[in-house]
């Protein structure tokens, strides 16, 4: 079972990297705003495997993206965002699963990502006003997060036979 988990984690991470790259080649409406489809796989890892694996998928994705683009700024942003996101999603999923549906857990993850991302950006640029950018990011993050959560739900139903996701 352990090996299987490892394989699935790896596959999910690979998927996440590819989606990440694919999104990177699409034009962004505003800097920092994107669907974040890669998060589908972190979410899947969380549901199918567990917290450890979710963090693993997130970290692998962030670092591979960095290796491929060499963009330090993006690395710091997505590292902070990804860790925040994985933490918040894991916390809600483990503790308050009954109160939240999957798409909204994903939205919470997206918000956490946005907060992490903007905090790093504000630190790096050394300009507190960058924090104001959180508002459009949250709005976009809500939509994107919801879609991502919905996609994850769909994939869950296909990939693993799940018993206790029902919403």
């Amino acid at each position, binding site marked *: 079972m352990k090996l299987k988990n490892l394989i699935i984690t790896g596959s999910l991470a690979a998927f996440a990297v590819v989606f990440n790259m694919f999104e990177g080649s699409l034009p962004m409406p505003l800097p920092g705003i994107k669907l974040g489809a890669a998060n589908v796989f972190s979410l899947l890892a969380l549901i199918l495997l567990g917290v450890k694996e979710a963090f693993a998928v997130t970290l692998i994705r962030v670092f591979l993206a960095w290796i491929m683009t060499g963009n330090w700024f993006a690395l710091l942003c997505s590292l902070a965002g990804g860790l925040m996101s994985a933490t918040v999603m894991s916390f809600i999923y483990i503790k308050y699963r009954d109160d939240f549906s999957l798409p909204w857990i994903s939205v919470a993850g997206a918000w956490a990502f946005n907060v992490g991302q903007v905090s790093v950006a504000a630190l790096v640029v050394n300009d507190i006003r960058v924090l104001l950018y959180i508002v459009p990011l*949250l709005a976009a993050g809500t939509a994107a997060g919801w879609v991502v959560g919905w996609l994850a739900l769909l994939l869950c139903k296909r990939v693993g036979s799940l018993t206790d996701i029902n919403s």
Partner: protein
Amino acid sequence: MGMKRGDRAMLGILMVILVASGVVWGTRSMTAAPDAMTAEIIQDGKLLQRVSLKKGDPAREFAIEYKGGRNRLKAEDGKIAVIEADCPDKDCVKRGWLKRPGDSAICLPHRLVIRLTGESEVDGVTW
């Protein structure tokens, strides 16, 4: 897909944030000025200095020297102009206030260009 308790709470939080920032932004853009701009002062192809221009700024004056020649500049209230020049044609003074992104004033005798940064509607101007 029905919404759960937590979902509704999150939606509520989002709405509050959006409405609040909408109100703040709306009042700000009504009372306060648009964003700040920067004027680049370039002599002989070299950037001498950047001057940030904000609405409501008090007047500032400074002089740019060039081989005995001189241009006096004045920046105020989000705009900048050459107010005095000892060159023969004084084109730069006639240019008046620069206030839109991409606006520029040129003093050929003193090899001076003052240009506001930002996106201009055109890529270049032929003259």
